[in-house]
């Protein structure tokens, strides 16, 4: 398949891995920020190609994983109301909230629908004028422009029965939070290629300069990732701390101006709580006042939500690169994709789910039991 197989070529991958082995003279710890990158790394076994000196740790870039429990519970409560159609991307349906997941809400009678794009939710609103259609708008800067466009269009079409439960998060504040933590051990980042395709790289240049940390904007295919790792290792070895773009076929320095324009028109930056990580100032989007009539959080009074997080789940430390999924005592035991305790085990981009799907286990003796289950 064109534009795909070229970036998965085994010979070229081996060559890049050899170059990384030559370049790395000391141990280095590199974090890939994006959940999509984590999944590709584990799926293709890219970390297995790397020399021992280079350790990859997995970042917080899985939107499903970091959506706060309070927001999940709010979605659950809104979906459970009569006359509401809750539209969501599929992954969000399986994320455990305090009172079960949205699939359970649907089985109990809620009208919860999977959409592949936010405009589908707008169409559902147009076709169901008697229902309140609520779109669960999650994601990083990558999905935000499409979601913003949907809300903007719904307003223009006068669809007063369309609203969005907005839980967008932003990557740069999360990177700063990781770098500012005294327990941080990340020495370089593979930057989120698709986020940068939207917003550009200038914010990352500030972080690289302030924190003296190399950031290589990377893609999602094996060769993209290996190329990114090679550039990061060379920077670390040379003592440089710059932003390099290893995904130039997609990312332009200034980003996508039209996408940024719609973001600015619909959203404003707000504080947000990240599941497993905690509150991070100015780390998300909320709707601007002009769009309040489409803000589900304002439209639906929800009784006080009391959240209950699993006491076993270590997703927070995993999302910040302090633990590997296999370090969590519940991994593969109490917590599997079918019995997830944390969102990192649910989302296709979650580090725990990626480890599970790719057969990373802490204890081989446990494998057979799990698979049979």
């Amino acid at each position, binding site marked *: 398949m064109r534009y795909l197989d070229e970036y998965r070529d085994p010979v070229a991958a081996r060559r890049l891995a050899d170059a990384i082995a030559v370049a790395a003279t000391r141990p280095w710890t590199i974090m890939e920020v994006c959940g999509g990158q984590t999944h590709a790394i584990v799926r293709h076994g890219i970390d297995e190609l790397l020399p021992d000196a280079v350790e990859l740790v997995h970042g917080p870039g899985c939107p499903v994983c970091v959506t706060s429990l309070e927001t999940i519970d709010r979605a659950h409560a809104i979906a459970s109301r009569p006359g509401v159609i809750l539209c969501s991307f599929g992954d969000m349906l399986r994320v455990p909230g305090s009172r079960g997941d949205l*699939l359970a809400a649907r089985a109990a009678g809620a009208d919860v629908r999977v959409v592949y794009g936010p405009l589908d939710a707008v169409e559902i609103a147009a076709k169901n004028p008697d229902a309140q259609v609520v779109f669960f708008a999650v994601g990083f800067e990558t999905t935000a422009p499409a979601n913003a466009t949907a809300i903007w269009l719904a307003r223009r079409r006068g669809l007063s029965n369309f609203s969005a439960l907005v839980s967008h998060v932003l990557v740069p504040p999360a990177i700063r939070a990781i770098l500012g933590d005294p327990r941080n051990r990340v020495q370089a980042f593979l930057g989120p290629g698709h986020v940068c395709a939207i917003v550009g790289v200038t914010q990352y240049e500030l972080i690289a300069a302030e924190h003296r940390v190399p950031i290589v904007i990377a893609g999602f295919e094996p060769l993209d990732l290996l190329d990114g790792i090679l550039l990061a290792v060379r920077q670390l070895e040379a003592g440089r701390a710059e932003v390099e773009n290893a995904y130039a076929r997609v990312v332009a320095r200034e980003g996508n101006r039209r996408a940024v324009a719609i973001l600015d028109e619909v959203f404003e930056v707000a504080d947000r709580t990240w599941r497993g990580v905690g509150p991070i100032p100015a780390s998300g989007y909320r709707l601007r006042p002009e769009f309040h009539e489409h803000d589900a959080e304002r439209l639906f009074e929800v009784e006080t939500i009391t959240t209950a997080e699993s006491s076993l789940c270590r997703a927070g430390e995993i999302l910040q690169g302090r633990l590997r999924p296999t370090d969590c005592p519940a991994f593969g035991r109490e917590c599997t994709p079918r019995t997830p305790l944390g969102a990192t085990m649910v989302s*296709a981009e979650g580090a725990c789910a990626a480890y599970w799907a790719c*057969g990373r286990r802490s204890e081989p003796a446990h494998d057979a039991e799990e698979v049979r289950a």
Partner: protein
Amino acid sequence: MSGTEARVEPAAACPVPARGYDRIVLGHGAGGGLSADLLRDVFLPAFGNPTLRALEDQASLAIDGARIAVTTDAFVVKPLFFPGGDIGRLAVNGTVNDLAVGGAEPLVITAAFVLEEGLPVADLVRIAGSMGAACAEAGVDLVAGDTKVVDRGRGDGVYVTTTGVGRVPVGRRLSIAGACPGDRVLVSGTLGDHGIAILSVREGIDFETPLRSDTAPLHRLTAAVLAAGGDAVHAMRDPTRGGAASTLHELAEASGVGVVVDETAVPLRSEVRGACELLGLDPLHVANEGKVIAVVDRAATDAVLAAMRADPLGRDAAVIGEVVADHPAVVTVRSALGGERLLPTIPGEQLPRIC
């Protein structure tokens, strides 16, 4: 089959606490882990008998010296008509195939129709005609049936349930528990065509050339496989809901073996591969309705592969993996880069009402 029963037991005693749902969710029908939960927690305790516990696609019964195979299947596919087929053709082929993969010769089928008030009679005529044609193609007669009608809004047009009866030739022994280390895993053609065809019409995904469901009767193909491989053919299954992953898991568990799939060897249409890349699906999880997975002794691999490729339904047949003694009950996939990952079953709902 007594050996199978013993091997199924550990699943029932699995110590992992299923968080579970207290109501049925769509994922219970996806053919993956949740479906297995229902079998283990609800149906086997209620109906447990050695024949059912073998968890084959068909029950094989000794009656007055003859071996008779029986199978039953319900069809709830949405939409009723899709590129390459319709619910009627699917219902006949699905049941014929469940018999064929057990090595049985399909003889007769029966059908029960649940119709929704308001269904256009023309649609029913079209579905029945399509079933008649599929029966003729498969060489079976539809010899009994039943029809019920439910209130408007309480069904979704038509649900069809088919039951099939076949004859198992003397001495034929095929079982999901029959795989041995060293065996090769063959697939009769491209994977994922049915699931992606349904998805494309349901979600409005357009391809340059319309992708058609692969629904087809497999009895000639399976007969050719058995004629070429004989006793060297250890197991056959048609990988429907849950895709090849579910079939390989069932095989690995029932046979107490490991399976290693070579990702680069899996035949895929470029439309299917593209759709899966786009939507984040693993083609090994996507449903098929006209493919067979055969597990054969290594020595017979070439003969069986040639027999598959000689059949019009098996032109794209390929060897996609091997059975190993390591990691029993675990299925892994080797990527192009050499990494090996575990192949999970579908954890829940991927695409409801695929068949």
